[in-house]
């Protein structure tokens, strides 16, 4: 071992000491594996996640249905797994998209400074000052065919998935933009940037080859932390009937009918919400652990 004190090794060592974050990482790994293996469980249990069986409504847990069935007789366990696929997919993609938008805006503002910075940051401030959830609901409710998009595409099953990723990313980039801008603002005064400038590098080269790599750790933390937020927004919209559309299962839309069924089957509502809670808190702990690992000076 020649170089066992490199920043990455140090960060990794600090991270593995962070028990809560390690546990969260494991939990998420298991969850991702389970979600990926959902079709296998379908074969094993001999039913599909969307198979309706009205003679089997609201059953309790049994060998055939480990977590019972819902109001249409569909297997709760399988729907939870498929819901996990949707939530995790939306979480990852929307978080990555919003961080990409935030990074481009923040990097441009921080690197160029001056008027560009003033304009972009005023714009960011204005976005932050918007009432988020009501706006998300309006955007989620619009009729895509009125925008001139082809009907076949608008009516396809996966459209609600892409739509939600798009909507969340559209309003979710502001925090990252501020973060990246602040870091870029201080990095651009550093010697290595001066050196690159002196060597005749273009703005784009400096921004993406010299400044961006130095921002990697805060960006990774930002993505991790925002996944949790995205999953919460997605599930809330799906719960209200505006996100992922049935019959596709999502943890949010599995709870849509729970309020009507609250007297009949109060346990129905427990599992999907618990899954949301565990996943979101695990991403938050993970992000917190990563932050401590990358930047040990912060907090405490």
């Amino acid at each position, binding site marked *: 071992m020649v170089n066992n004190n490199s920043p990455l090794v140090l960060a990794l060592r600090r991270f593995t000491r962070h028990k809560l974050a390690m546990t969260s990482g494991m939990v998420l790994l298991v969850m991702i594996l389970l979600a990926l293996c959902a079709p296998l469980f379908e074969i094993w249990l001999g039913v599909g996640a969307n198979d309706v069986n009205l003679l089997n409504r609201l059953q309790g847990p049994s060998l055939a249905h480990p977590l019972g069935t819902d109001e249409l007789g569909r297997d709760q366990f399988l729907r939870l797994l498929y819901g996990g696929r949707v939530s995790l997919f939306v979480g990852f993609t929307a978080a990555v998209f919003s961080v990409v938008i935030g990074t481009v805006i923040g990097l441009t503002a921080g690197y160029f400074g001056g008027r560009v910075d*003033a304009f972009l940051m*005023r714009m960011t*401030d*204005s976005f*932050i*000052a*918007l*009432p988020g*959830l*009501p*706006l998300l*609901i*309006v*955007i989620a*409710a*619009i*009729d895509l065919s*009125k*925008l001139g998009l082809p009907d076949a595409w608008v009516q396809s099953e996966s459209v609600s998935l892409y739509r939600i990723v798009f909507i969340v990313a559209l309003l979710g980039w502001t925090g990252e933009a501020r973060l990246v801008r602040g870091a870029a603002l201080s990095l651009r005064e550093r010697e290595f940037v001066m050196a690159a400038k002196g060597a005749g590098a273009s703005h784009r080269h400096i921004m993406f080859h010299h400044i961006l790599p130095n921002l990697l750790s805060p960006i990774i933390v930002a993505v991790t932390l925002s996944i*949790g937020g995205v999953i*919460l927004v997605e*599930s*809330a919209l799906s*719960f*209200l009937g505006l996100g992922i559309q049935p019959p596709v299962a999502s943890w*949010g839309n599995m*709870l849509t009918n*729970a*309020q009507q069924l*609250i*007297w009949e089957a*109060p346990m129905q*509502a*427990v599992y*999907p*919400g618990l899954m*949301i*809670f565990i996943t*979101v*808190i695990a991403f*938050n*702990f993970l992000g*917190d652990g990563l932050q401590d690992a990358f930047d040990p000076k912060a907090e*405490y």
Partner: protein
Amino acid sequence: MRQYLLARSAQSLVVILLMSFVIYGLIGLMPGDPIDILASEDPTMTPEDVAALRALYDLDLPVYERYLNWLGRAFTGELGYSRLFGQPVLDVLGPALVSTLVLMGTAFIVAIAIAIPVGVLAASKPRSALDYGVNLFAFAGISLPSFWLALMLMTLLCVTLGWLPAGGTAPAGSGVLEQLRYMLLPVATIVIVNVGSYSRFVRASMLEVLRKDYIRTARAKGAGQWRVVWRHGLRNGMIPVVTILALEFGSLFSGALIVETIFSWPGMGKLIFDSIMGNDFNLALIALLLATVLTLLGNLLADICYAKLDPRIVIGEGR
């Protein structure tokens, strides 16, 4: 300061104008339009009637022209009628604003009343059990889906134990106690979700203050722990807290949309949701705009509070 305020107000005004256009455009893209709804409710209408109505309500014009017409009418105070309630929009908004303010205000005061002492105690004993507890609770709070928490509280307290009503407001003329029973669950949901992060915020702010020189001076002069923390520390520790409070000001009016919808609390959040889902274009437009205006106002207020409370901060220079 004055110049800064003017600039900020101008900026907010631009944002409000832009947002009014964006919201107007978005509402126009909602499924169905008012004339279609009318036509579907009245079988005697002919296609010619529909076309005539469209022309009458400017619906055959491009969106920016319709927007300008609407803006002109809005400035003269003509905001139209709500389709769902059959009343002028403003008459619907008034009561909703009041009931949201009651709900959110109560939740807010309760959360702050818990968060300040807890946060200060956690900061004065870093790494204690309480400190870790606050941290954990804050993480749980930001990770809890509020609609699920609401459902769980409802299941436990209304269905299983039967202690509380499962939503709505108290019947008119009932006593204060009865009204409180209806408020308890929505307030509890909002408090549980927020109190952890508020406490964590108070804690972080206090921790910073308690490291300052004047705190060491106070200790050196022999002031006790209690006096140092609660008299010397708290005053400066509260400045960022007040800022956060002002930032929350906007949400005080736009309401907790999800919580209000679940508990059928007739506030702004539920109104916004219902008007969007019920194709009530006039109402949705004004309610959303009002929410935007109030949120922006809250942000402005936060900046002013920040400067007024801390004379060391000079805003409007060097920006």
